[in-house]
């Protein structure tokens, strides 16, 4: 899917972030093409989640830029608020599922669609649950196989269902890029397989690009087009998975097996 000549959708240039004296993200650059899946691995505290936060606007970088490439050309999103970045087609899921506990699964997804279409408070844009909204909701429910829990409240879901719903909320907003923070952490083996299938099918059928922060190397091997290894805020390796995994043995030896 990926490879040379593909349209670039997202790019980070020389990103830096300090937390006090800690250099959490140190000179990280990347490019993401349409339909590409970039995985980021590294030990805890390597700066993976911080990097996602920089891209999705939750925290501002101290240096460097983030760009979204769209129909209107290159747009600088460095330090822009999360909702602005969302509207430009960059969605985000969270390590600890971040959903609406007091709403049913259907209403969770409805909310995401309505917020994206700005139907929540702008009465002049047409008001109510119109068919187009319900159609998108049904579609998302179908893709994420949430039919059985559609009328359950967020608080009643299992961990795996919460994870799926978290990603479904972002997917409901027709993103071109999804940033997933440990999509398989805490999932059972079969749930992991389902998640891998899901990521691959979203890429195949919807041409969604992904940046996936992941601990499970099997998952990484299965889905990635490109693989980045981070350690102490820096990029140790950034290449095709086979190349990196060969290298990583060297790196692991060098760092005492700590990296992967």
């Amino acid at each position, binding site marked *: 899917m990926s490879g040379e000549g593909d349209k670039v959708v997202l790019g980070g240039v020389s990103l830096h972030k300090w937390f006090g004296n800690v250099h959490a993200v140190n000179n990280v650059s990347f490019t993401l093409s349409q339909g590409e899946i970039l995985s980021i691995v590294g030990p805890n505290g390597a700066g993976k989640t911080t990097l996602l936060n920089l891209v999705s606007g939750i925290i501002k970088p101290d240096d460097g830029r983030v760009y979204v490439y769209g129909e209107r050309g290159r747009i600088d999103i460095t330090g822009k608020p999360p909702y602005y970045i969302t509207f430009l087609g960059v969605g985000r899921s969270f390590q600890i599922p971040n959903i*609406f506990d*007091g*709403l049913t699964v259907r209403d969770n997804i409805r909310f995401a669609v*309505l917020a994206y279409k700005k139907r929540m408070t702008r009465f002049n844009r047409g*008001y109510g649950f119109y068919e187009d909204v319900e159609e998108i909701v049904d579609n998302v429910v179908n893709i994420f196989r949430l039919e059985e829990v559609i009328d359950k409240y967020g608080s009643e879901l299992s961990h795996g269902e919460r994870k799926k719903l978290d990603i479904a909320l972002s997917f409901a*907003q027709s993103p071109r890029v999804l940033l997933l923070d440990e999509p398989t952490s805490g999932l059972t083996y079969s749930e992991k397989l389902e998640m891998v299938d899901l990521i691959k099918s979203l890429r195949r059928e919807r041409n969604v690009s992904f940046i996936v922060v992941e601990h499970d190397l099997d998952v990484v091997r299965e889905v990635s087009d490109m693989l980045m290894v981070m350690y102490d805020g820096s990029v140790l390796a950034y290449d095709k998975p086979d190349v990196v995994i060969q290298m990583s043995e060297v790196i692991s030896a060098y760092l005492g097996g700590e990296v992967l």
Partner: protein
Amino acid sequence: MKILRDNELYSLVVLLMFLAVIPQFLSTYNVRLLSVGLLYGLAAVGFNILYGYTGLISFGHAMFWSAGAYGLAIGLVKLNLDPVLSILLAFTLTFIIAVVTGYLSLKHTEIYFAMLTLAFAQLIYALIIKLRDITGGDEGIYGIPRFPPDIEQYYYLVYMIVALLVLLAWWIVRTPLGLGFQAVRDNPYRAEALGMDVRRVRLISFVLSAFYLSVAGILYAPLNRAITPDIAFWTFSAIIVIMTIIGGSKNMFGAFIGGLIFIYINTQAMNLTEFWQLTLGIILALLVYLAPYGVVGIFDRVVEYVRGRR
């Protein structure tokens, strides 16, 4: 919590039908009391839009009840306006106060928001006391005309407006806007990340709930024929919070019935003992201990228990 959650509209309609019939069997005194109960219920429902559904607790909602009541009374008694203009005056007053205090208070959330609303409400109270020429100061405003003058007929006027607005509230929280309220309550950060203007939605909820309190105040002034500044004092804001919690803030039925129950407990406690505030305090403490989801929560637990035994 499931039985009433799934049958909330049904429960509301049954309760409203009951309230349509019951005055036929009550004394004038009790019909008057029940009218106040309906207005307390309406106030609790309005407050619950903000508290139960948007997740913001205000300790200043008495200011909107007073804005409605004083607006109408000033229009009718002090300015000799006709009823329609007086109601318009009351609404305008409420709207201005709600937008300004809401905008300023909503710079914060949680306890800081609660404290700001309390501060603004006390400011309004101080204004009512000091602006003696307009508001009557400590003595309030007397001789507010009631139409229709007959208490039972007035009950049905109150009843119709309250029933309409309570059902409207039930509907509003099920529209996209209501979904927005609940999303903000559950997870404001995610709601914002998904592209919603959280402060704007909070302000809409605040103003909407103020409107409900204002209508209750507008209907209360003629019912009582007189108003005094204690409806603007912070203890009345506390009562609005308390009755919503008594009934149960998870849905509109709970809040509505909370208002009715509060009036009943309050009057009974007053009749039975001179230590009525102590009695009320004990009942409230017990309710919070035994029924964290309010009276509606107890009902659900009983039904679940009975079903479980069968």
